[in-house]
């Protein structure tokens, strides 16, 4: 059998951590992307802040207001 069922291939602690970490990364990135899209912020991540700061616009003004 060269095709092996994942579970049958054996799961050590390291493998479990790896899978959980990967799942967390993918989930958190997807969620942030959706949230940013809803807020209307581009998530280009280009760092070309010379020309636009839409992605890293300071939001502390609004946050402080809420306080």
């Amino acid at each position: 059998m060269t095709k092996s069922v994942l579970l049958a291939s054996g799961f050590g602690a390291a493998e479990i951590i790896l899978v959980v970490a990967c799942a967390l990364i993918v989930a958190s990135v997807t969620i942030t992307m959706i949230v940013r899209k809803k807020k209307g912020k581009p998530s280009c991540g280009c760092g070309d802040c010379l020309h636009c700061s839409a992605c890293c616009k300071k939001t502390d003004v609004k946050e402080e207001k809420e306080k």
Partner: protein
Amino acid sequence: MRRFALAGNPNSGKTTLFNGLTGSTAHVGNWPGVTVDKREGTYKKCAEPIAIVDLPGIYSLSPYTPEEVIARNYILDEKPDCVINIVDATNLERNLYLTTQILEMDVPMVIALNMMDAVEKNGDKIDANELEKRLGVPVVKISALRSKGLTELMDKAYNESKKRRCGSSVLEESDISHLISDVKTALTGQKVANPLFHAIKLVEGDEIEVKMHKDVLGVVEAFKETYTNEIFGGDFEALVADGRYEYISKHFAPVLQRKIKEKFNLTRSDKADRVLTHRIWGIPIFLLILFAVFHLTFSEDFLFLGAIFKLPELADIPAFVTVANGEETLTYGARWLQCIYDGGVMSPGVIINNVWNNMIVGELFGLIQGAVEGSGMQPWAIGLINNGIIDGVGSVLSFLPPILVLFLCFSILEDSGYMARIAFILDRMFRRFGLSGRAFMPMIMGFGCSVPAMINTRTLADDKERTATIRVIPFFSCGAKLPILTAVAGAMAGAFGVGNADLITLAMYILGIVVAILSVLLMRSTTLKGETPPFIMELPTYHAPQFKNLMLHLWDKTKHFVKKAFTIILASTIVIWALTHFSFGWQYLDDEFINESILANIAKLVQPLFTPLGFGSQLGEFGWVFVVAAVSGLIAKENVIGTFSTLASCLAAGGHINVEGLDIMAENGVDAVRAMIMANPAIIGATLVAFIAFNMTTIPCFAAVGTAKAELGDKKRFNYTLLFWIAVSYVVGAMIYTIGAWWWTCFIWTAAVVGVIAFIVLRNKKLAKKESATTL
């Protein structure tokens, strides 16, 4: 919390002041219109924290460009507690023109007289107290660059914000003052806020006001009929503008005492300008600078020293070679030397690149991969970490140096003020294609990232020009597409021994520009027909680029790039790896069976579509890798090479491709592509060029798509834009591949192109005839 808005002319130093006040590191450029969106920050050194809003730079409150509407609406609708009007003291008259308009609003204001240091350096003097008396609002001398006078400015602004101020106008002595007061009374009766401002704008015949206050318009119309002026006739707009400037020259300008009385003297900036925008040498100098930028970034033979002196390669010098395990390799010291010299002196960009990739990233990731392999984890886990994550993310990270060097060069050109001159030089050419030189700036910015470039099109006054520009911006290959270019070009040069990787890269950039220009021409003569928009632009004075500014820019770029590699790219590589290691039955597949995976099966379905472009069915078994790479680019263009590296790595591990003598991760993913090329004889040079061209001109990453949607506004227009991108990339890719594979197809393409041109020309002639017939 109190809110203060910063308003002023473009390039008057608003953003510098904003940074000084808020401790933020927003960036500053040297051409008018860098800030097109408003940004917010907090000033904390006052009695209470104050929110500072940086508005886009504007010349007037009459809506000419979208950014002027943003600034105007902000002051009118959001009612800041105080407006800090920043005035460039070196350019007093024109800056005060905006001031006279803000004065008409019922909002507290303070004037920040910026660039006082530059004025004093010229030996000129400005009597700020006198100006304050004449304007009726506080005037504070500041130098935003050296953070002088900021505390005083904020204290005054804070005091003002507690008071109420009623609008005042400089037009009170003019012929139309009683018309203005009549309209104002009518508007006050309707309880309109800022009655004076609205009254004057209504008298000017401002589009927005006319729509808003139709009922009062009668008063203006009635007055117009009774009034004539020998210079302006019934043109109130001219009358108002003239009234403002006349008042400024009479009452405000005298506060400036010039040391040199002559009006048009030659400054250092003018001297530089005479060379750089020379009638004959201007364009060659521009091309030379562009070439120098690429040479500095990519050339492995800096200043052509290697070619001129026929220098030997390191591997040919015995002193640098040791024999380990029966193989000849370079000594450790020689490997460092190789970063700087190998048969030619490397250009600075390549040196940084080599040090980063060969000595830092390569070694470090090699160590990690070794450790993972020896950790005793399951083979699939090792594969996920080593082939999936590290090869994918590493190949993307390896592009940090060339991206940084390229953008350092661009920011130097921009910060110095040269970019604005390029618009001046190239306007004539741009006009042929139905654009103004103004459109050149967002396009050049597209080399950095399409998102800010698309946002910046707000500085364009003409709607059709804006749409056309937004559509072609992705063709200006952005930083994230650079990896595709260099990796594929490097692989091409390596595998086929054709040409020089740098030249292929530069040629691809130029291909993008050519496609952009042709598409604009096509759009402007079919769907987006219109008059060539006007080109009226301020040219900023040259100044030496600011080191701090440049470093901030580089730091931002680095920060975002690394962050992106470890978020979006990382997540994408994990997903790609997972989708290529599971079958539809959620059964785990070893690297050997990657061809039966979910992703492979889906991609194989789509694969035939790309046959005309060279990376479809003809590539056989593993051709789907190209399709997957191209599609993963829709998330982020860096993914294209990341995916390539991950998949090549997995294919190698599964024994499907031979990677002997190649290092999948090293040298910017070049070898990953090279391994794919060597495994498949169906891949020819034309396939790769078509692949680059397709990726460069197709739908950009989804962040850019989102921005395009927001900036275009219209849903239908956006859908057409998507269609346009797909069509262009498909046609361009197909054209390159077919001509490259079968040279005689160039006749078919030529015939097709001529046919299309003839059709458009004939149709336009017919339409023009019809139009002239209807107007007659």
